[in-house]
């Protein structure tokens, strides 16, 4: 709680991971991960499918407990043993699987666990805030009183993103936030990330879209098969980044590009 009080200065290290390891039975999802997050910085976490990105985010969100390793938050070692604790400390997360309650409506999901006036829910205020938030994210939701079950994939994702903003966090972690979003909504989310960064928050964003990553990230951390595989800047060429992700310069992407180029050459020739 106390950690929450102090707004970190820009550039200060908020979070630091040392040797974090997570094993699920015989599978090692994360091995000796090192990571630092500073205030006012956007860190992109990239990697192949199953590289362990979401597992890392879940460890930081208090969903999974690491098998080994230490986490420091604002300079103090912490154990994140429940999502409630992480939220309380100011770590907000948008999970890849969204984690919404399908039986509740949009408003209820947005404010879940942090309702206005707990003993006499202020539905009107909550609805107003819901509409304004969603509008900010360019969401096209027919009604905020429909259960989440009836929303489209992108609409759900927008709700999940909107929710993380309500908590006034210190760090915000977005696990593939734009995967299901339309072009307009993606643009708004990228805007939002920049706004949030400028307010001095630390941001971790996971994405497979290198263009988006390069557009907002200050640092790009690559994971491969559960291990650190280098830190890059947005200026790194696409080819180098893809090589770091797939672990080889000769990969599916380069092969496809080569083939397309050859075909194009063939037709023009």
């Amino acid at each position, binding site marked *: 709680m106390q950690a929450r009080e102090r707004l970190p200065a820009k550039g200060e290290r908020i979070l630091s991971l040392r040797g974090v390891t997570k094993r699920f039975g015989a599978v090692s999802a994360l091995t000796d991960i090192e990571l630092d997050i500073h205030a006012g910085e956007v860190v992109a976490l990239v990697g192949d499918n199953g590289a362990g990105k979401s597992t890392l985010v879940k460890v930081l*969100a208090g*969903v999974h407990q690491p098998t080994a390793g230490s986490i420091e938050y604002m300079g103090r070692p912490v154990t994140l043993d*429940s*999502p*409630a604790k992480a*939220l*309380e400390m100011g770590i907000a*997360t948008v*999970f890849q699987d969204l*984690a*919404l*309650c*399908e*039986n*509740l409506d949009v408003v*209820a999901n947005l404010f*879940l*666990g*942090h*309702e206005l006036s*707990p*003993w*006499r*829910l202020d*539905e*009107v*205020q909550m*609805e*107003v805030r819901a*509409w*304004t938030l969603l*509008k900010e994210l*360019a969401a*096209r*939701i*027919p*009604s*905020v*009183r429909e*259960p989440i*079950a*009836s929303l489209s994939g992108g609409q759900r994702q927008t709700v999940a993103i909107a*929710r993380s903003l309500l908590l006034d966090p210190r760090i915000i972690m977005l696990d593939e936030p734009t995967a299901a979003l339309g072009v307009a909504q993606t643009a708004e989310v990228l805007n939002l990330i920049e706004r949030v960064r400028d307010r001095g928050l630390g941001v971790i964003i996971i994405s497979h879209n290198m263009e988006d990553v390069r557009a907002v990230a200050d640092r790009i951390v690559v994971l491969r098969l559960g291990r650190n595989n280098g830190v890059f800047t947005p200026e790194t060429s696409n080819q180098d980044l893809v090589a770091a992700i797939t672990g080889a310069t000769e990969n599916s992407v380069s092969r496809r590009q080569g083939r397309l180029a050859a075909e194009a050459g063939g037709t023009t020739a």
Partner: protein
Amino acid sequence: MTTDNDKTTLDRADARVRHDDSLKGAIRDFTDRLRSGDLGMLPVIVGLVLISTVFSALNPVFLAPNNLVNLLFDCATVGVISLGIVCVLMLGEIDLSVGSMSGLASAMIGVLWVNAGVSLPLAIVAALATGAMIGAVYATLYNRLGMPSFVSTLSGLLAILGLQLYILGPTGSINLPFASALVGFGQLWILPAWLSYLLGLLPGAVMVWVGLSVMRQRTAAGLSAQPLGRLVLKAAALTVGLEGAIYYLHLGRGVPVMFGLFVLLAVILNYGLTRTQWGRSMFAVGGNREAARRSGINVRRIYLSAFMLCSTLAALGGILSAARLASSSQQAGTGDVNLNAIAAAVIGGTSLFGGRGSAWSAVLGIIVIQAISNGLTLLNLSSSLRYMITGGVLAIAVIVDSLARQSRVSHGRG
């Protein structure tokens, strides 16, 4: 958002949604919901009306005011237990021991109050506290050891039954004094006519009052609001219905105080479930436990509250049934109490899988069950026929609801 139309309110910007506030709109809205099966409690009420019609055709005594008064007395005891069941079902859990728990509470009243001379309020508090404690045990087994509630409460069912027999000892049953307030409450007390008429006005009044204040707030906040006419119409219909029912009951003995208590508890639970953070968390945990946990909800505390509430209400139901019978006996809480309490909640529309339910489901469900049982007692039937008919009628009462829900699913609402 270039298509925004500044004249529309915040929540009506979407062109795909049809809104209509006129009376004709209300009717179309209703037929729409009729067709899509999104009718809430209506189907159960229709089922109830169906049953009543048949029974009163077979024996007009069924609708005699005093018979209905008896019906209400009988509803209250198991109904209170069923309220607690709604809470655990809402989380997708179950409590099989509510019957035994009510039996234990009833035995405690007899043993403490009549035999040991403890004062009545103290005995009641002791029984309720025991209920709360047992609920806490279930919750702990669930939260710490992950023991399925089906198994822990099945163990509880047996252990508590043993305890009940044990504290009653060889006597087997204890009479409660007829002249006492408790027995009067359980058998005789009727709300004074003026009070019941007044209470009958209350729901309508509250509806209008709350409706108006919400309407004001919504318009102020730039949201669309329910049209005044529809609100007043609803409130008027409700009030007329209630006052009519009260008038009819007063042709007989009147409205039992015990039933009043049951409704009061249902109102409180309903408020808790729909208008507080606790209730929201209950729905969330029942709908998606992991999502609720990730939202920072203390999931364990929610389970604790539900199990404790359920056992405590079961204990209260046991006290009421002791009052109703004027006796604490070995039989209290055995037999159909468990199944009836759970069935009432399910019939009223609470899902066994969690995340869907309401306090009113217990009220409606128990009325359906008791109406069937009461209606059949008015017919001269052999036991075998009685069983068969009870089963059949129960199925019919629920088929209406199932049909409606079926249509909802086919309309894509899972």
